[in-house]
């Protein structure tokens, strides 16, 4: 054994390669075709310590499934999940337990993700006790501090309340407190503000950011709302029908998208400062994931699709500016700027 401790600065905390999850529907006793839903179909990305990756896309694009897969709340069908250099893809629930402490989940619906009959103070203290990090009294003390920290003050007034006695924003603070009391290194936040009243979103995002800075948290932030992604993320991955179709630094992707779908999303989102803007309209709605289009999955809706888009599936590839897009005929650089000018 060497006496010299080598300090290896591993900046990548989570690394996902070729992740796939297929769901099988139908095929019961009553017969019917067995149908395969390719919810996540070959997704790869890295998340560095202290960095936030936003996973965005419409409902059914696979963003939430991806989030649950990386935390091993769902069993992946293919691919690997490397957490801090350790392959956790096939670990048993028991082997996973020490990792669960280091990675946490924050859900969209804070009410549904809290036990309705458990006082919130106990819910926050519970992880410490279960993981053997503190005795009851000590855990209670820490939970009290945590309540103060997330703004549920005075803590004594809140400790014994049950979730139904709190507002939506307060409940989400409880969920965050419960996730953060274990001082995790990584968190998946699945639409953490989409059910919160608009006037309280800022404070929730602020809270998350505070913990991120304090713990050097790596974060996957799942959202359907590009404007929220822009506020919180360093990198962004736009998903469509189980695949990442564009990936890169958040401002680059949102201000100068190279994939037509990203441009369509960006121009469709309601905006107060650009009320009369020209939208890049795309046809129809997201395809049935049981029956994926051939070639590029986006081609039936794409205003710029050419003949071979229906036969060749595009790979995610470097666009020469530190960003990736999966498109045979990507938009030119500066497209969106010119488009919005008319």
């Amino acid at each position, binding site marked *: 054994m060497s006496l010299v401790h080598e300090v290896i600065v591993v900046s990548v905390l989570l690394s996902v390669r070729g992740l796939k999850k297929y769901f099988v529907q139908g095929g019961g006793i009553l017969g019917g075709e067995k149908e395969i839903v390719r919810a996540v179909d070959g997704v790869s990305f890295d998340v560095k310590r202290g960095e936030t990756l936003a996973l965005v896309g419409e409902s059914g694009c696979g963003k939430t499934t991806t989030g649950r897969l990386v935390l091993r709340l769902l069993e992946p069908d293919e691919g690997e999940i490397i957490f801090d250099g350790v392959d956790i893809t096939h670990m048993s629930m028991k082997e996973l337990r020490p990792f669960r402490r280091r990675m946490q989940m924050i859900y969209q619906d804070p009410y549904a993700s809290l036990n309705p009959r458990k006082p919130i103070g106990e819910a926050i203290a519970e992880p410490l006790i279960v993981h053997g990090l503190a005795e009851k009294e000590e855990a209670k003390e820490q939970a009290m501090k945590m309540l103060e920290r997330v703004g549920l003050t005075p803590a004594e007034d809140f400790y014994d309340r049950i979730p139904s006695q709190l507002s939506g924003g307060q409940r989400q603070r409880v969920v965050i407190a419960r996730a953060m009391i274990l001082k995790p290194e990584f968190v998946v936040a699945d639409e953490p503000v989409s059910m919160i*009243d*608009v006037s309280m*979103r800022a404070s929730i995002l602020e809270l998350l950011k505070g913990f991120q800075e304090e713990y050097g948290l790596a974060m996957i932030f799942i959202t359907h709302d590009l404007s*929220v992604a822009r506020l919180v993320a360093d990198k962004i991955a736009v998903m469509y029908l189980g695949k990442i179709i564009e990936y890169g630094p958040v401002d680059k992707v949102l201000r100068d998208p190279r994939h037509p779908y990203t441009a369509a999303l960006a121009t*469709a989102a309601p905006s107060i400062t650009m*009320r009369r803007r020209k939208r890049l309209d795309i046809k129809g*709605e997201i395809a049935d994931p049981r029956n994926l289009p051939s070639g590029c999955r986006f081609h039936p809706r794409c205003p710029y699709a050419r003949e071979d888009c229906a036969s060749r599936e595009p790979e995610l590839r470097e666009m020469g500016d530190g960003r990736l897009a999966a498109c045979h005929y990507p938009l030119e650089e500066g497209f969106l700027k010119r488009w919005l000018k008319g």
Partner: protein
Amino acid sequence: MESVVRLEDVSVHYYTFTGVVKAVDRVTLDIPRGEFVSFVGESGSGKSTLALALLRLVPPPGRIVSGRIVFNGMDLLSLPEQKMRELRGKSISMVFQDPMTSLDPVRKVGEQIADVYIEHGVTTDMEEALKLAREALEMVGIPGDRVNYYPHQLSGGQRQRVLIAAAVALKPSLLIADEPTTALDVIVQAKIMDLLEDLMKELKMSVILITHDIALAAERSDRIAVMYAGRVVEYGPVDAIIENPLHPYTRGLLESAPDLWGEKRIKGIPGNPPDLRNPPRGCPFHPRCPRRFDPCDKDEPEYVKVDDRIVSCHLYTR
């Protein structure tokens, strides 16, 4: 300016086991004919209850306890139930948030639209009604042959179009849309909102949009009514409200909304929404208000007219 609906001092209370909830509290305003008016508010602001009150469909334990709702010269609140039933769907229609639960899953969408014609006595012949339903579908951008589809065979956006087709089938003068796009994705949302705007012009309707999304309201409306704790705190033309919000809550709401093209930060409003069973004294917004002063925690502000706006705030009462 002619109005399609005028609300006078309308209050709706819910009588629950734990107390009286003043969901809508003395709302007075005019909705001009042919305009697109949005009611914007957060959860518990009373915006959905207000929409239901316009149709006299407030579910128990709720009750419209006072006021007048004047629609085309009639006070809806004093009409007999039979007359009100005739008006619903014919003169005032409503589109709800979740298109899946508003449609009957085991009946063809064409039949469900045809019902409207038969119920309101346009025709007694199902064949004839289905023909009209086909036309209604085409009007909302769905191929007419889809009358024979069942709801589950349609996408979310198409289902919402079906509901809109049923709602505008009899060319109402007022369409109320309660969060019609909240369950839909942004790209579909934009198209549904386009459809509402087109129908409004084509059928010379007025539209009331109920939404939590002030950016959506800002893009689509002629006028915005901002609601807080059952009160309309500010009401006026959209440009004035967006560019120069008078009520501190309106300002707060605008600064809370993340914007893809705006500043890369949002502010939010401190504190929590009030408990409507036990609302704060004085102005309901005062505990969260950055500009509160002397009278705010004592007296409730009256409505004040400022140019072409009305606002309920002590900053303007003197």
